[in-house]
């Protein structure tokens, strides 16, 4: 029997592929890599592109990834695929947006938290909930 390795292709939102294969090709940052069983441990970033998996029947399956990470252990290959194109500028822009949202929301706010007030309010809400529960039990 030919030597095989286990391939997992997962994205943050779902599992894409998980099976054994004889060979995996991935678009690593430094150029495409082909991984055969008993490859030395490797950790690298992926560029957007195609991950190709040769399964035991000799078929070739291909998956598109928009970047991510590739982890290689002698008998396990893990592709942590990104669901979105990541670029430094893009991430930066999104971070700015998130900050702006916060600033926008805080237009009339103070940085000091009134813990006493917060706890009092929460206690009140909790009491309300408890009262509702009690009333429900009674009826």
């Amino acid at each position: 029997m030919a030597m095989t390795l286990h391939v997992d292709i997962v994205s943050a939102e779902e599992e894409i592929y998980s099976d054994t294969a004889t060979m995996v090709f991935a678009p690593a940052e430094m150029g495409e890599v082909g991984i055969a069983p008993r490859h030395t441990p490797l950790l690298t970033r992926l560029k957007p592109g195609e991950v190709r998996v040769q399964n035991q029947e000799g078929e070739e399956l291909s998956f598109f990834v928009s970047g991510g990470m590739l982890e290689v252990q002698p008998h396990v290959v893990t592709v942590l695929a990104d669901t979105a194109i990541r670029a430094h500028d893009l991430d930066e822009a999104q971070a700015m947006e998130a900050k702006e949202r916060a600033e926008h929301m805080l237009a009339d706010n103070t940085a000091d938290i009134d813990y006493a007030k917060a706890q009092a309010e929460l206690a009140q809400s909790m009491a309300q909930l408890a009262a509702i529960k009690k009333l429900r039990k009674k009826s």
Partner: protein
Amino acid sequence: MAGAKEIRTKIASIKNTQKITKAMEMVAASKMRKAQERMLATRPYAEKIHTVVTHLSHAHPEYHHPYLQEREAKRVGLIIISTDRGLCGGLNINLFKSVVTAMKEWSEAGLEIDLTLIGTKSNAFFKRLGGNILSTATHLGDAPSIVELIGTVKVMLDAYEAGSIDRLYLAHNEFENTMSQHPQVKQLIPVAGESDEQLQTHWDYIYEPDSVPVMDSLMIRYIESLVYQGVVENVACEQAARMVAMKSATDNAGDLIDELQLIYNKARQAAITQEISEIVSGAAAV
């Protein structure tokens, strides 16, 4: 006839409310199933990336990533995940209660706190009460995508790298089952290194191109995936809590209707009795 008509309208209006709560219960039940599936779907990624990070913390790389280093805390960051909508029982209130308790402890220990808020409910809560808010994200919907969180989380990660915060925590509801959800506050950074007995061997990866950028992007993805999982889990909690809240609302409406029906019947009977006695006494007078 004392208010028989009013009682009837009241019963009709409660019946309408009951229909709405019943519909909401069913919608929440089906959404919860989907949210649970989504929660399970995110698990493989989280497990895989956790394995890789655990390997890394044992692989003795020449570069120690800042996320793995413990440093003295002066200021902490806290990411709070709440729901966007209400009508889900005490879910958000319970979460805020444990958050405020934790925050109070930190501030008593002399730590300052920066906040990142996810969900409109936490926004409303901390807008009213104050707090140093760095970034927010709202309206993620029932099927949140990780893209919408990247920027929000990055603000906190940047703050950590710049040294303005020394620890990062995540607060969200943990989904146990349909009936119980628990608020929890857990530490994200520094990443708690686990001692796995099987991984005590000394080996290291080959890094391409270099260990520093590879580990940077890996750690960022790791934190993002933890936050994303929190968000997805919170959605499942929200739907479960809403389902339970709406179910009890429907039951309560049913009880109310029964009670009102009884009062209505009594009123109707009283009116009939009165009418008869009036007729009888009228006939006697003739």
